[in-house]
């Protein structure tokens, strides 16, 4: 059982197989801060794609050490994004990170059918949390990309999440499909989907995981609460993945963990052939660094 976020961060240091992160539109103070901290700690190497002059300016003003970073001058965001994806294909970069560029532009070359990076049906956002009141790390999905996923999309989000947890070494992650209540209620789609996804896992339509839902949040993370409600569930109180019914629920939950439970998650976009980091301005430097560490560690023993 993995109890700490730091346990999934591989100590990379002087390793020769250290990954290289390609930052798209790297001329951004916060992103540069996190990336230079990561290169300094030997977590990743970095190639900064963006406005070279502005990158240098920002580094000067804030005294970020960019001496170890390769810089590619590309002022057009869409071209910077395309170039970074090309580097992934060529094997000269291994992780993508969004800088000062809007999300659709950043994602466009990744999502392209020809020459893109998609492996699954969709991209989805997974945030890994370590919380004081919970006995292990867990994932929350999708607080970033999919707004109001239908059943098919939920299946894809769930598969992405499970695939990712599998790669972290959690073989049969327990997935709680969140609803407002733990009963099937015809007028609440979230509860219907919860029941459907449970059955799909039971029938082997969703592999390498145990799914139970609908579960309200308390039932998902507290066995006692589930017992109190008479819910018999392998997942209740021991969830590895929380699948939220929509982006609002996931986002509010994410922020409540961060602001009220003082969590610093690592967030990553999955569903592409390489880890993609798409942190928001609201994320702290620690979250950005954690996300880089997570991306750098995935698939490394």
């Amino acid at each position: 059982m993995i109890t700490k976020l730091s346990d999934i961060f591989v100590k990379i240091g002087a390793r020769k197989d250290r990954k290289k992160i390609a930052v798209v539109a790297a001329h951004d103070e916060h992103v540069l801060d996190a990336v230079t901290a990561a290169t300094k700690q030997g977590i990743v190497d970095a190639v900064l794609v963006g406005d070279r002059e502005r990158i240098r300016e920002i580094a000067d003003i804030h005294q970020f050490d960019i001496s170890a970073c390769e810089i590619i001058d590309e002022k057009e965001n869409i071209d910077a994004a395309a170039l970074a994806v090309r580097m992934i294909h060529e094997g000269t970069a291994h992780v993508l990170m969004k800088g000062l560029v809007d999300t659709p532009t950043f994602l466009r070359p990744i999502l392209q059918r020809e020459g893109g990076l998609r492996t699954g049906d969709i991209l989805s956002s997974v945030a890994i949390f370590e919380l004081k009141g919970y006995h292990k790390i867990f994932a929350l999905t999708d607080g970033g990309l999919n707004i109001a996923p239908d059943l098919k999309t939920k299946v894809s989000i769930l598969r992405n999440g499970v695939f990712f947890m599998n790669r972290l070494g959690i073989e049969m992650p327990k997935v709680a499909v969140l609803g407002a209540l733990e009963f099937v209620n015809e007028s609440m789609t979230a509860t219907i989907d919860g029941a459907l996804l449970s059955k799909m896992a039971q029938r082997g339509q969703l592999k390498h995981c145990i799914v139970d839902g609908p579960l309200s949040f308390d039932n998902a993370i507290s066995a006692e609460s589930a017992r109190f409600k008479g819910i018999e569930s392998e997942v209740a109180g021991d969830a590895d993945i929380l699948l939220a019914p929509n982006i609002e629920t996931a986002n509010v939950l994410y922020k409540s963990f961060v602001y009220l439970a003082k969590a610093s998650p690592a967030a990553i976009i999955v569903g592409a052939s390489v880890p993609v980091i798409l942190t928001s301005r609201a994320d702290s430097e620690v979250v950005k660094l954690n996300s880089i560490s997570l991306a750098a560690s995935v698939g490394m023993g």
Partner: protein
Amino acid sequence: MIKRLSDLEQYLRERNVKTRLVVVAAQDENVIEAVVKAKKTGIVDVTLVGNQKIIEDVFTQHNYDLSGMDIINEENNSLAGVTAVRLIKEKKAHILMNGQESYFGASLISKPILDKQNGIVKGKTMSHVAVFELENYHKLVAITDVAVNIAPDLKAKAAIISNAVFLMRRFGIETPKVAVLAAIEVVNDKMPATMDAAMLSKMAQRGQIKNCIIDGPLAFDNAISEKSALQKGIISEVSGDVDILLAPDIETAGTLYQSFMFFANAHVASITVGASAPVVLTTKLDTLETRFNSILLSASTYLT
């Protein structure tokens, strides 16, 4: 727990079940034959509502014993239905049965049963349950619903299951196993039957449908044969040991019912439950045995 319909009579006698059956438009040879046989068991008393003269003629003709039978003369079939339902409502009778049979089951009594003022449904879902004894199955198994609900939605399906569970529990099956039938055993968002099945499974697991174990979607073979389920990699408490088959619609249920009758040497008893009294709705296609069994099955709803 009883495994054969022929055990029903003794099972009810041992438990001192005593009920009164009221027959609507009782001037029907087939129905009278079944009723006479049922009365001999001592489990049911009988009130016949209908054309008294024709009823008495049938008794004379066949040398049936009329003693102890109440007859209420009512030559208008619709009014006979109203009278019978009133007797149920007044608790003077406990089982309703249609007399003058058609080939399509009797709509004769459904009207007074469903009447908002004087009916006996009280907002509940009525549903039909057929209990089968099959040559190649190790216990009784019920099919629902072949007669009342045409294309039930999720809520109706939950109610249909509860009705059947109530009935099967009368036979000492504490927690009946329910298979929700579909064409396939996996969830497919283009097939509502599979989606309803998944939801009903979860509803049982969460205690929203009580006193039963539900699994679905299950194809018929997975429901009835554990081996077939295992071959498909289905691990299910219900597979191969099902007590209740819930069909997705009336066509599926009806076809399955007929296939049991024609190809599986089946014995059957069937009733409609959900009203304040069970209703026996036989048709001309049924046999004496089925009518008799169905009356006893109705009486069994009064087992506690």
